[in-house]
């Protein structure tokens, strides 16, 4: 197997890692999507040669609990700017958290709507009396 063949194999595997949130490939792909930038621009932003991008993408994503150390480890290995990498990861993390929160809010709203719709019959006379008793001024 020739060297270009090996490079293609690495690039292919990095491509497959884009579907796996455990890998930096996933983070980089989301970032490029959010910023509407191509791979070349992403490499430039991180200060890495484009042909090294698949290797960087095959690294595991920095863990929240060891964030600084993990970012530093990856940055040192690929001689990239740790601040730039941290920004990329933070941005994608934030968007992920917001998306998860939105999904949570949607489901909570759905619950409230269901609760609001729970009463199928018009309020009875007793209900009006009870409400008047609770809020005599209204």
């Amino acid at each position, binding site marked *: 197997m020739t060297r270009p063949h*090996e490079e293609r*194999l*690495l690039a292919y595997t990095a491509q497959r890692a884009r579907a796996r949130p455990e890998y930096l490939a996933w983070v980089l792909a989301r970032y490029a999507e959010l910023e509407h930038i191509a791979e070349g621009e992403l490499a430039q932003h991180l200060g890495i040669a484009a042909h090294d991008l698949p*290797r960087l993408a095959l690294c595991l994503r920095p863990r929240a609990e060891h964030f600084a150390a993990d970012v530093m480890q990856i940055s040192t*290995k690929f001689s990239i700017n740790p601040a730039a990498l941290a920004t990329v990861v933070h941005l994608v993390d934030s968007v992920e958290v917001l998306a998860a929160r939105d999904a949570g809010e949607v489901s909570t709203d759905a619950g409230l709507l269901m609760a609001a719709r729970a009463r199928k019959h018009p309020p009875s006379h007793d209900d009006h009396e009870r409400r008047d008793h609770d809020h005599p001024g209204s």
Partner: protein
Amino acid sequence: MPQCFDSSQLLVLHHRLCDGDRTASDEFAELILKLLVEQVARRYPHTDEQVIWDGVSAAFLDYCSRPHQFDERRGVPLDRFLYKASWRNVANILRSHIRRRTHEAEAARAYASAAVELDPVVGNLVQQEESAQLHQREEDVMNLLQDPTDRQILALRLQGERRTEAFAELLGVAHLPIKVQRREVKRAKDRIDKILRRKGDRP
């Protein structure tokens, strides 16, 4: 099996992955992907390169994200563990391809029977029908076997594989002398033939 690294190198990387090292996966990839692809391609000689790459990369990515799934105390070398995971992935991909082709061929057959006289590509449809029948037959034969290893052996035979070592790998007797491998492979093939004859079909 020629390899361009020392097994202890892999174990060092494995320990680094287990300890949470973020960059060990990249080094691991450089060390092992090529070898895995070569080994799996030898096992599936008539299979599309992309299928092999898919199987290998899935096994590799699975392992690196969950390195603890490999238990070195079991005595299986790490490269062997990854090789097995890779060829199993490839076998699954091939099985799903067969299933998909069968469904596609069935749809084509239904279409052909509805419009065969008017369609200018009738020749293609006849070919598709023949191919569908073949795939259906392969699928039917495969369903007659209960044992997963028997199924894999049959799948290899249907792909045209004839080398003893390919079957010996499946049977886990590749480490034995070639004479014993031949005997075990023949025994397995005869057993499968017997099952198929008894159930009314042959590969």
